[in-house]
């Protein structure tokens, strides 16, 4: 494990940013942006998750092996979503008899 000690002010900045982002994403839910509601909500969620992984979970200060394991976890999640949606989105085109 990394012996790097993260300064407390880094935790505080991350913490404040996470709280602000929660207020922002909740407020935007009251405004109708059409399809952009989903885009904005997910962008903010990914941003928050990245902050937690990098600083609270110390990945910014971890070894390359640990980083590779973390990235592989999320990459394979995206692989699953990508290929499942490739299937679901093209069924109407390829299903026989349609």
């Amino acid at each position, binding site marked *: 494990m990394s012996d790097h000690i993260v300064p407390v002010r880094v935790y505080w900045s991350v913490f404040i940013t996470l709280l602000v982002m929660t207020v922002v994403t909740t407020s935007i839910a009251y405004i109708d942006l059409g399809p952009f509601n989903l885009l904005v909500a997910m962008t903010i969620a990914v941003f928050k998750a990245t902050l937690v992984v990098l600083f*609270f979970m110390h990945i910014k200060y971890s070894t390359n092996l640990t980083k590779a394991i973390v990235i592989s976890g999320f990459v394979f999640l995206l692989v699953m979503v990508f290929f499942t949606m490739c299937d679901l989105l093209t069924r109407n085109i390829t299903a026989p008899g349609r």
Partner: protein
Amino acid sequence: MWTFLVTEIMFFGGMFMAYIAYRHAYPLAFAAASQKLNIILGAINTTVLICSSMTMAMAVHSAALGKKNLLILFLIATLLLGGVFLGIKGVEYHDKWVHHEVPGPNFEFEGADAQHAALYFSLYFGLTGLHASHMIIGAVILIILIVKASKNQFSAHWYTPVEMFGLYWHFVDIVWIFLFPLLYLIDPRK
């Protein structure tokens, strides 16, 4: 520990995939059903969980510096915030129960597509239930850590259990960071 968390990503990932597939298939029913959730309670719970992640990060920080009393204090704070989260979740579940929004024989929905609104609520209970069970397991481990810390079993040289549990707790926080917009913020509020 990270290898375990990667398996957890896949564990939750399967349910997230089911959610994405069905939301894609029945967007209107999902949007209508999501209006039934209490966005304020959801936002409060997001805040509570972020606070508990902060106290957990401070607990690991205190452990690394060998500050035993601060470590115990922050672990207890994390446990209390986790309890608040589960309490609010319990209130929300109770609301769903009272309003016949739990899928099953007593399910009632006034929208156009009640069948698929029930599907949304099944996924809601599945995803938040899986998340809440992780919180309950986390709370049990927190109690064990508090006992061990008070018996001086951790030092600045060795606090691996605290650090590992911190990763677990932050992971559970990340799951909620995605659950909140996906379940509560689907459809603009009217």
